[in-house]
């Protein structure tokens, strides 16, 4: 097919779309303001959890519905061994046991597991916890490796990526152009707001984990995701605030306090990195694909970049290739119910 599409922004949304289009033989050119992959993308700081069943606790049902397919999408795009399909374990401390019950009530796709199963899945946590929820169909990937690999894969498919190019989508008209700039592209989208997130990378040899672990807490829910070389990603705060790019003391206390509560051995860990960035979100916290003539925009991925970028890429690709004006709007079922 002889068609050319320009993409502005090479974060998770832009690269997913590039792959989706290049797969179908479309010529793609990308423009990224950073000097290398991930440098200025908020998806660089993500947890990389493909955990739609857990997210369904308070996300709209559509996040579960479309998020489920992301696991296979990432396996197709990056190779099967790139995605760790080992599930998620969800814990609560003894004093917050009700949180585990509440979480169980509002989700599905888990089994309640006891000490023996915990000991076989995550031996280092077995002495701390007698009960957990095991979401065995969930998976995770290392978002940084994933972005880099995806950029290599698409380049092999012929996609050109230009770095250090801060460009307005309008500059590329009359060619087709897709704006995937995240919060940096907020000016063009009414109602896009920043939700600040803070994350930590720590390193310790005193504990090993093989899958993401969530610790429920009434105020500070936490997740810890194992990475290579005994690194652990600890995240993440959600603050309705576009202010500043610094880690706050309060957030640091909360994240580290919770990690220490999850397992005391985190007390001896070294802090490798403190990451802060702004997630782009719309009022319903659901992503959108919009089209205005020859400009498409994918945005609002919120905390579901790796989970929903594949589906949004498919929606956008379909609209671009088949010249469709009508694009599915992800439904906020929680609001649509008839309440009369």
């Amino acid at each position, binding site marked *: 097919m002889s068609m050319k599409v320009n993409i502005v922004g090479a974060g998770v949304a832009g690269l997913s779309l590039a792959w989706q289009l290049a797969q179908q033989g479309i010529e793609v050119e990308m423009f990224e303001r950073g000097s290398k992959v991930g440098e200025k993308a908020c998806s660089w700081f993500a947890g990389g959890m493909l955990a739609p069943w857990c997210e369904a606790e308070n996300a*709209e049902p559509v996040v579960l519905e479309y998020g489920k397919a992301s696991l296979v999408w990432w396996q197709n795009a990056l190779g099967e061994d790139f995605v760790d399909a080992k599930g998620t374990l969800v814990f609560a401390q003894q004093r917050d046991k009700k949180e585990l019950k509440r979480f169980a009530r509002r989700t599905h796709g888990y089994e309640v597991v006891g000490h023996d199963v915990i000991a076989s899945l995550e031996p280092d946590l077995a002495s701390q916890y007698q009960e957990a929820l095991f979401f065995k169909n969930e998976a995770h990937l290392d978002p940084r490796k994933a972005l880099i690999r995806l950029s290599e894969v698409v380049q092999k498919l012929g996609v050109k990526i230009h770095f250090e190019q801060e460009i307005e989508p309008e500059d590329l008209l009359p060619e087709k152009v897709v704006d995937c700039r995240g919060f940096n592209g907020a000016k063009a989208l009414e109602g896009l707001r920043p939700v600040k997130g803070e994350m930590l990378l720590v390193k310790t040899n005193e504990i090993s984990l093989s899958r993401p672990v969530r610790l429920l807490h009434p105020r500070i829910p936490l997740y810890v995701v194992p990475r290579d070389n005994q690194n652990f990603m600890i995240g993440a705060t959600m*603050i309705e*605030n576009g202010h500043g790019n610094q880690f706050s003391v309060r957030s640091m206390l909360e994240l580290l306090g919770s990690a220490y509560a999850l397992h005391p051995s985190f007390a001896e860990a070294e802090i490798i990195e403190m990451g802060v960035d702004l997630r782009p*979100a719309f*009022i*319903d*916290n659901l992503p959108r694909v919009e089209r205005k003539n020859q400009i498409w925009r994918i945005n609002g991925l919120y905390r579901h970049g790796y989970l929903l970028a594949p589906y949004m890429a498919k929606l956008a690709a379909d609209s671009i290739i088949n010249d469709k004006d009508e694009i599915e709007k992800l439904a906020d079922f929680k*609001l649509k119910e008839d309440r009369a």
Partner: protein
Amino acid sequence: MLDVYGEKFSNRLLLGSAQYPSPAILSESIKQSQSQIVTVSLRRESGGDLAGQAFWQIIQDLKLKVLPNTAGCYTVKEAVTTAHMAREVFNTDWVKLEVIGEEDTLQPNVFELVEAARILVEDGFKVFPYTTDDLIVAEKLLQAGCEVLMPWGAPIGSGRGLNNPYALKTMRSHFPDTPLIVDAGIGVPSHASQAMEMGFDAVLLNTAVAGAGDPVAMAKAFNLAIEAGLLAFEADPIDARDMAEPSTPMMGKAFLS
């Protein structure tokens, strides 16, 4: 009508704006609750320089009375500074004064609270103090210039309801003419009804709605419960008795023996 600091409101539910799954659900929950006063936390949601503008815009669009709070403040100084920032940001002299004493129960530090209230009233604020059910503290807050009191039902976010109905009843009788708003600890609508049946003027809550599986439906349930409780209070309920009293009139009943 709820009458606080000279402003009148037909609805008796004050709703917090934190912790909803999305701003869309927050906005719809507030609509369904029919609440006319919404509390906003300055420290986290807006950062002090209107940086949280997008979120603030969503609240503003609801065109309700905004009651900024000093959630998360532990000292007089923090609370006073936060209140001043809130006055700038939200353009109101109303402030819900929270000075927390301890992390696990988040109970008010009443000593710091009274001092902060005194300073803020002097600075021209209309202070809504989050306090315990202690009568002497309440007295001191009124002396400091507060015209509303907001005693707790139970610790913030605990959802336990009215932990000490006796103390709350005493407070109601002791301050018959002061607007009293039960703030914090409410879990389900019946807790809110209970407070209204006891003659409280209003109820303030956040987690009970925001943390529900379906916040929008729960907001509606609270609105109904608070209206029911108020109607019941105004209808002068019967007193509880130890013995049964037949509700069927004896007149006209057949004498068979």
